[in-house]
């Protein structure tokens, strides 16, 4: 049954359907509604879980680390500064191979301070060893949250479900929440193979010398190859239960025969799809929606890019002094293939700047004018304090 639900409410109810025993979080805009909704579900007896209202995001991540290590399914959520504050723990959770699910209500990172949406926070921890799945809409956020627990528990890798702050978290959409029985059939009770127990004492988090360090890191890396299969399997199996897919690793839509492509992550995909459907693009375009950023599905990207002469990669984050982050990885995946497309990287929608449906046509037109490999597409030079010519970024 479909209900009109705010994204955060829907995510909270999806979490509750997964029956976590421990939820720990520290409030930060735009994540707050998720945790408040979970607190109400617990207060109303609709979710039997321990809610730990910690004193910082650092402790939120640490509490779920401890709780999952002790054998309880655990969940946390954060955003922006909170993700950065917990970043040391995020590395640690993955290195310890503890299954945990975290919702990142994607938000810009200070300074300048902004409470609005971009992908800088999750991109800042892309090397922390977490699976990262980006949701295009709130139905995907619900379904991905449920899938995330199974993926995490099967791979013993933590999963970050990335949901655009405000654009998704604070937006009402018609959402289908699966029946509890369906979720129970999909997600078995939590069992962690290295759970802390006095009956079977294990030592975890030891000092590792150079003699063993590389091998342990390689095992962590290797788990991401398995994760690709588990992400696909979870999406497939869940689709068998509820009748809809969430985009696997990467989704290809639009005009599949087109020679020009646009790649997006997160909610911009919805705008892009609408623009395509409404004929706003003005020409055939292949649309690539990247759902899994970690593991990075290089094979799927190469396959999806076959026959393209140009690929516009949209980045909603920035590596200052380098450029867009997703585009670098796309270029790397395509390098050395027979006839790779020209990759043009546009950073758009930083700090919550709206990405309107009409912008994609301008991007496609810009392709004809030999654009630089990287640029801020929606930058307004008129707002800059310096002479225009001196600051327009180039490759």
């Amino acid at each position: 049954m479909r209900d009109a639900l705010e994204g955060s409410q829907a995510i909270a109810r999806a979490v509750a359907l997964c029956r976590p025993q421990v939820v720990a979080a520290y409030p930060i805009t735009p994540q707050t509604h998720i945790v408040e909704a979970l607190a109400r579900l617990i207060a109303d007896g609709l979710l039997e879980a321990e809610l730990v209202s910690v004193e910082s995001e650092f402790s939120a991540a640490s509490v779920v680390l401890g709780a999952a290590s002790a054998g309880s399914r655990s969940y946390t959520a954060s955003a922006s500064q909170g993700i950065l504050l917990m970043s040391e723990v995020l590395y640690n959770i993955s290195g310890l191979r503890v299954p945990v699910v975290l919702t990142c209500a994607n938000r810009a990172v200070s300074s300048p301070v902004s409470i609005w949406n971009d992908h800088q926070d999750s991109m800042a921890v892309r090397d922390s060893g977490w699976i990262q799945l980006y949701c295009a809409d709130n139905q995907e956020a619900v379904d991905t949250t449920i899938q995330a627990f199974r993926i995490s528990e099967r791979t013993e890798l933590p999963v970050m479900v990335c949901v655009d702050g405000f654009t998704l978290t604070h937006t009402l959409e018609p959402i289908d929440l699966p029946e509890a029985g369906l979720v129970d059939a999909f997600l078995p009770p939590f069992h962690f193979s290295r759970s802390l127990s006095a009956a079977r004492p294990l030592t975890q988090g030891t000092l590792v010398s150079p003699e063993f360090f590389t091998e342990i890191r390689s095992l962590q890396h290797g788990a991401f190859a398995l994760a690709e299969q588990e992400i696909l399997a979870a999406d497939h199996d869940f689709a068998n239960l509820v009748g809809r897919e969430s985009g696997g690793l990467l989704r290809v839509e639009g005009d599949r025969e087109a020679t020009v492509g646009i790649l997006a992550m997160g909610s911009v995909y919805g705008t892009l799809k609408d623009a395509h459907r409404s004929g706003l693009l003005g020409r055939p375009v292949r649309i690539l929606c990247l759902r899994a950023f970690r593991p990075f599905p290089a094979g799927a990207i190469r396959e999806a890019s076959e026959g393209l002469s140009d690929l516009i990669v949209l980045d909603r984050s920035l590596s200052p002094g380098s450029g867009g982050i997703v585009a670098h990885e796309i270029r790397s995946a395509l390098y050395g293939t027979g006839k790779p497309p020209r990759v043009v990287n546009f950073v758009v929608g930083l700090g919550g700047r709206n990405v309107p449906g009409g912008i994609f046509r301008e991007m496609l037109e810009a392709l004809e004018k030999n654009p630089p490999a990287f640029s801020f597409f929606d930058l307004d030079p008129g707002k800059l304090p310096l002479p225009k010519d001196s600051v327009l970024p180039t490759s």
Partner: protein
Amino acid sequence: MTPIPSLPSSVDMTALRKVQPRFSGIESGHGACQGCGQALAARLVLEAAGPDVIVANATGCLEIFTTPWPQSAWTVPWIHSLFENVAAVAAGIEVALRAQGRTTRVLAFAGDGGTFDIGFQALSGMLERNHDVFFVCFDNEAYMNTGIQRSGSTPHGAWTNTSPAGRVRQGKRHFKKDLLAIISAHGIPYAATASVAYPSDLRAKVRRALDVSGPSFLLLHSPCPLGWGHDSALTISVDRLAVETGLFPILEMERGQVVSSMKIRNPRPVREYALPQFRFRHLLMDTPEAREELEHLQALADANIERYGLLSEAPGPRDSGGADTIRRGGSRWG
């Protein structure tokens, strides 16, 4: 505490103890330095806590010297996450056990860096949320794992590599943080201090801490021969002096109130405590600056004695001269 029934005089206590080994949570063969107070302290805590525990350990010497992969000295379930989050990790373990209906006790181990300084926020949060966790701070009064740098626990005037003594400075310029007062201000059911020089007192406090429901805290003075610069054979006698000078008061607090203290039978001058330790050597020089700093340290010890009423009126079995003197003919239980 359950009273121990008196034994007939025919029982040889020493022989009995040898055939009844205590539970050992840390096996021998780890890599601690000779005379390490922390290794002894951790072993004593686990002897009293028993095997049905889960230990969360902050980054520090204890973590390093017990777990060089693929070896481990621990016989209890043990997890190390990071330096500053041990209280939160322990809190997570505790809520998980509660959710699962398990009764295993949760211990958090940290050094003074992980307790007084970098781990303080998580500790305060854990106490405020009333988690049923027993937090043990092994206090060796500096960052020893990184090579002897000052911490919030380093005593006034002590030399460390970041509070060196030189021509114009006489070691650490600031006071040792009064952590016990801060901890007990959280109103937790039980907070205490102990010293490795008084193992029976220490064990009794571990049992009391584990008897209470809710957070409990033990500040456990543990000499570091390397960092304090004393002979590794002197760990126990140096720490007795820490107690007998008044510099490290042995206390118990319930809900913020002092409920007991170990009386000092023969108060020792701070100079005697400083003498065997390199970290205080500059205070023993014949200069006005050194004399002034040593006087400061003596004043701090005197203030402790006055504040907690530490002088014993008559010798007692549990005062600093009577407690833990079984080897010298005293009574273990008083």
